[in-house]
């Protein structure tokens, strides 16, 4: 059953501490973030990328890290258009207009179950954060990261602390194939003792959901949709879900959904 979450959020003009290219088209934007609004893995914030009218809407980004000690948060962004290009050019010392944290978090797997986290391309950030959290809790977590080719791979430094399984469509690094094919080939995978978490392009999420449905493995997916208000007011970011009114808001009931609740059409 899809549930509405009501975690507190705020608007803040956060000072940028670092804006670092990570290789591929990825960069990491780090900024100050007050401890009273600590973001959890899976949650997102919205950023107003420009004061002008183009691009108009705030853009949602999932948190890729948060350090309570430094009161610093970050997002990993992939350059893919006007808004992300503007963010790429922002410099330390400048401020970003943020609202967050918004939405629900990835649930911690029940005791005795292993987490397998599947990140495709832009889905890396939140699952990197979640992997670090789980490993910090002493939980067994395997991160699989997939992208098209070596050129798209973020710098190894960002990933290696999580000891990820890498896969590329062209086989230039790691396993040759999709993250789902990589998952199926994972040695010793026991769906009865695993929870899957996925973030990435919709076709990938659909494939993960199909695998989960077929194997009976619990699976959580981070959904993406164009957002209007991002505070639950406009009903614009709806996706189709089973039961209830037939729709759920990604910004309010999500962005994390059980894969079996999503209608994948």
């Amino acid at each position, binding site marked *: 059953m899809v549930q509405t979450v009501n975690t507190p959020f*705020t608007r803040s003009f956060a000072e940028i501490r670092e804006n670092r290219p990570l290789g591929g088209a990825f960069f990491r934007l780090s900024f100050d973030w007050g401890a009273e609004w600590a973001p959890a893995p899976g949650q997102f914030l919205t950023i*107003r990328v420009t004061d002008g009218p183009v691009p*108009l809407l705030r853009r949602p980004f999932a948190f890729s890290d948060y350090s309570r000690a430094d009161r610093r948060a970050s997002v990993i962004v992939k350059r893919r258009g006007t808004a992300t290009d503007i963010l790429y050019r922002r410099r330390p010392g400048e401020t970003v207009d943020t609202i967050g944290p918004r939405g629900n978090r990835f649930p911690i797997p029940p005791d005795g179950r292993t987490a397998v986290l599947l990140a495709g391309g832009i889905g890396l950030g939140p699952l990197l954060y979640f992997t670090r959290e789980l490993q910090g809790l002493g939980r067994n977590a395997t991160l699989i990261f997939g992208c098209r080719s070596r050129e798209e791979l973020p710098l190894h430094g960002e990933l290696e602390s999580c000891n990820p399984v890498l896969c590329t469509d062209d086989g230039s690094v790691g396993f040759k194939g999709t993250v789902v094919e990589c998952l199926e080939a994972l040695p010793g995978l026991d769906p009865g003792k695993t929870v899957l978490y996925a973030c990435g392009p919709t076709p990938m999420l659909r494939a993960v959901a199909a695998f989960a449905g077929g194997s009976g493995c619990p699976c959580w997916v981070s959904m993406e949709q164009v957002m*209007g208000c991002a*505070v639950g007011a*406009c009903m614009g970011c709806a996706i189709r879900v089973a039961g209830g009114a037939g729709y759920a808001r990604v910004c309010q009931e999500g962005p994390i959904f059980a894969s079996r609740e999503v209608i994948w059409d």
Partner: protein
Amino acid sequence: MGLSSGGGRAPADLRVPIGRGLLSNPVGVASGTFGYGAEYAGLMDLGLLGAIFTKAVTREGRSGNAVPRLVETPAGLLNSIGLANQGVEAFVRDKVPYLSRLPCAVAANIAGSTESEYLHVTGRLEKDGRLWGYEINLSCPNVRSGCLAFGTEPRLVEKLTRKLRRETPKPLIIKLTPNVTDIGVLARAAEAGGADAVSCINTLVGMAVDVKTKRPVLPSVTGGLSGPAIRPVGVAMAYRAAQAVSIPVIGIGGIMSAEDALQYLLAGASAVQIGTGNFVDPAIPARVLEGIREFCRAEGMKSLREIHRWKAGWERDEG
């Protein structure tokens, strides 16, 4: 102290009478962009607002249109939400208790597919009695029946307004569509039916096509365009409506700043609503209010009503 300094002068009276009601100031938030108020309570002081116009309420709940429902366009937002809401009984049960405690006027935005649906919802809220007034949505471009069909036909606008007028003595505002040849005709029809004000404009019909898939981006094919892209259209429509009627006009469309709002007011509107701007910057309503206050002070105005005096000067010369 110099006469032009304005020092020590009482602040201008920003109140706006709408029928038997009174808005504490001219800055409202537009239906569909502000949920039911609570969604924005953590981001702004709702007590500063002149009015909240709620998400549209219909008789039965509606799940809304197919997804995706939004696409951004240059300085604009194209939407096809489809009046998603829980229906009037859930609205009265779940939303009105909170809304009626807010220190600002709250008008329920009411939509329907038939005349009897509009009458039912208005009657139900009137019986409940806790809200300040009603804004009748005769202008949603995203539902197949009703709404816009009413809103483009002057005879139907007048007839429906007259029937709604019998349901309530409270402020009754008719929200008009810009997707017509002459909005003045519709404003006059609303006035003739007994409306206390007209809101203009609702969204403009727009369409975006995905060149990769060769299909419309929105499954509903067309949607409603809002945002700064439509502001000049909104100002012109508010102007035409204000020329046509003597009841107040509430200007809506692309307001992002006090200057934008002042354009509407100088063109003939008596109040404004912030819509899509709330998504971008929830501080806009407060900034718009402050800017209007500052304008009145700088111009030595005792009351916001004086803002139409400039219009009287240039309107006579207009062809």
